[in-house]
């Protein structure tokens, strides 16, 4: 299997698809990369030549922010929001959804597993 930038081993799917296994490369950038290197997006990743791989690696290295660097960038952006004390930063601090979703129900991804409150009576008992 081909390796790009050391760690990433996209499999034998089409090049546009397998490039997206790199953190920080989505549909848009994958297409752009194929375009700029002149590699056919339909070519299987395993059929890429050394030359093409080198081209991709060079381009990614020089002009794109991917993998660890990208992850750090995202964390920094969140850190900035936290530091300036804006609403979005507060939501990040509290571990609640940031984009205005409801929290009465759902929001389990952000809030984590349910924490059931003991002693909360059902509707029937309250009457």
């Amino acid at each position, binding site marked *: 299997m081909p390796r790009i930038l050391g760690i990433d081993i996209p499999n034998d799917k089409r090049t546009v698809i397998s490039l997206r296994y790199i953190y920080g490369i989505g549909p848009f950038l994958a297409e752009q990369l194929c375009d700029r290197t002149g590699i056919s997006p339909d070519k299987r990743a395993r059929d890429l030549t050394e030359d093409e791989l080198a081209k991709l690696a060079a381009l990614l290295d020089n002009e794109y922010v991917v993998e660890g660097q990208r992850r750090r960038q995202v964390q920094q952006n969140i850190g*900035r929001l936290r530091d*300036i*004390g*804006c*609403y979005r930063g507060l939501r990040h601090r509290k571990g609640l959804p940031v984009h205005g979703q409801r929290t009465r129900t759902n929001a389990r991804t952000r809030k984590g597993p349910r924490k059931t*409150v003991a*002693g909360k*009576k059902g509707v029937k008992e309250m009457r």
Partner: protein
Amino acid sequence: MGRSSKKGPYVVERLLDKVDRAEQTGSREPIKTWARACTIVPEFVGKNFAIHNGRNFIKLYVTEDMVGHKLGEFAPTRTFRGHGGKAAKGAGRK
């Protein structure tokens, strides 16, 4: 969806005037405002504001990092006092 860049950022003109005046007189007094929707522009950096949250004025010292956000983002409108606890249990149920 973001705002059309053709229009530029939404800045309340009167507030900008006030900032200019504070700049000229060198006043450090917080600028009281209700304009929560006003974008923070570079001119605001280093100024003190008092932003209305519906009840009180929240003091804010604007730093460079805050440029591009809205004033209202820094004056929360809701107070969450937490769920549960002994006091709430005694008063709430029965």
